[in-house]
């Protein structure tokens, strides 16, 4: 409880510091809108050109896109310390400062940054979700709403877990490893489309290694009443747990890696 209070107090303070530069904040938020709007435009163009992808109708495509946007950018807003700031914390030695305080390192890393500019990306995502839900005429039930919430929450843990891989490399080499971006940002770009349109190697990558298919596509397909691979409905509530599992594993690896942290400068 105490930790959660600390997290929200830190977030409040960081928000206050960002608003010290209102013009810059406003411009950057606008830039994010253009960026994510562009991503959505890609979906619109595909729908316009092909009408549908496999058995996925236009509404379904908007729905997938919306779920990915909301999941990914919620993580970027609230987990900015891990998704964006960690390499610079290591490089500048600011991580030392965190180690000098009687709290968990990961807690403090999460408390060290917030990225409210992404709020416009979420707005785009929510818009896509509503459009998709209407076009595909989703019959909402309590279970479906739960599946959506579970998918987003556990998907956030998955994204955090994937960024922790980068953090672990960073602790060792004091540099960020761009290769990991292939499954973080790459995963976001690829998995905003349904998994079964991809060739087998990519399907394996995004099911086993970076299991977006399990946290996002299985529940999304259930909500759209087009079960992925014809799996039974209950799987939509079980497979997203893969996100928590990946996060748990990476959390342990991260703790272990911190023992080998060697700090920089003097």
């Amino acid at each position, binding site marked *: 409880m*105490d930790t959660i*209070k*600390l997290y929200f*107090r*830190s977030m409040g*303070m*960081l928000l*206050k*510091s*960002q608003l*010290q530069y209102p013009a810059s904040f406003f411009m950057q938020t606008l830039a994010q809108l253009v960026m994510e709007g562009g991503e959505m435009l890609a979906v619109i163009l595909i729908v316009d050109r092909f009408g549908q992808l496999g058995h996925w109708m236009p509404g379904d495509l908007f729905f997938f896109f919306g779920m990915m946007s909301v999941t990914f950018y919620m993580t970027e807003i609230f987990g900015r310390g891990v998704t964006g700031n960690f390499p610079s914390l290591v490089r500048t*030695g*600011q991580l*030392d*400062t965190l*180690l*000098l*305080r*009687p*709290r*968990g390192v990961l807690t*403090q890393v999460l408390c060290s940054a917030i990225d409210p500019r992404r709020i416009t990306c979420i707005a785009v995502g929510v818009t896509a979700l509503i459009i998709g839900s209407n076009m595909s005429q989703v019959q909402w039930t309590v279970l479906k709403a739960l599946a959506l919430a579970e998918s987003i929450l556990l998907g956030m843990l998955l994204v955090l877990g994937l960024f922790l891989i980068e953090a672990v490399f960073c602790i060792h080499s004091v540099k960020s490893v761009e290769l990991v971006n292939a499954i973080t940002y790459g995963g976001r770009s690829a998995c905003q489309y349904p998994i079964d349109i991809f060739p087998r190697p990519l399907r394996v990558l995004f099911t086993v290694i970076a299991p977006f298919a399990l946290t996002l596509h299985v529940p999304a397909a259930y909500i759209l009443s087009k079960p992925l691979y014809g799996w039974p409905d209950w799987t939509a509530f079980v497979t997203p747990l893969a996100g928590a599992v990946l996060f748990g594993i990476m959390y342990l690896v991260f703790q272990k890696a911190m*023992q*080998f*942290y*060697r*700090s920089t*400068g*003097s």
Partner: protein
Amino acid sequence: MRYITVEGLDKQFIVRKKREKGVLREKSVIHALQDVSFAVEQGELVGYIGPNGAGKSTTVKILSGILTPDGGMVDIGGRVPWKERKEHVRHIGVVFGQRSQLWWDVPILDSYSLLKDIYRVPENEYQRRLTQLTDALQLGDFLRTPLRLLSLGQRMRAELCGSLLHGPELLFLDEPTIGLDAVSKLALRDFLKEENARNGTTILLTTHDMEDIAALCPRVMVLGHGKKLYDGALPELLSRYDTQRILTVRYEDGAALPELPDSCAVTREAEEIKIIYAPDTMPTAHLISLLQSAGTIRELTAQPQNIDHLIAAMYREMDL
């Protein structure tokens, strides 16, 4: 009561350097610390000096739980820093002269209030400490100013207050007076002395400013190439190297300088003649009579060698 015990501390860093030719990188091992041992009593004020890269910061980082050593034993108040990091850091405060621990864009009072939550300091205890520290450090006027708008001296005071809010038993200061003006430096030293006397805080200070050490630390440890070279009182250390004196002379109407033995180093700046000599080989009375024979002396001052020169001489002799 013994508070810090360090025995046989070792730390190595593996550095990968690019070779002059080719793409492969060469590994080399740097021994940052080799078999360093010392003990510090509770309430002691200890200076920790040595040239850049001697291993001072590495020691501080190990003692504060940031780094894990490769060998050796550390006991601070019954704790092993890197094994019980969270419990350990609750009892210590650290100030890095070149690295801020407060939040850059918010008023320092907000930073303190967040630190209170991080360290779980009870509200009344926090208020008491804050009043005490803001008075002693004269922070009252800019508690509501964001850190980035403070001058360096103000910022250092603000950092110091932040690191003492939770009432640490042990305070590490890593070059706290770097870049400060004379007034701020003196105020900082007074404050540290007072904090040490009033709360019995043990203080370990690393610095390049020998005046800091002379003013604050009855005991000094010298580190070089990762090894402890000296541990004892500063005057004793200096007396070994304090073999030279400086004599500054001015003559009436710029009379010529007399012949002096080679052991005297002479520099001349306009009217002013500066002679560095060793009283052991050239007694002062003898030198003065030599100087007098050359003309009428208008002004004559004698002074000891600057403390930095002594340290430089010491580093040279120890081959650092």
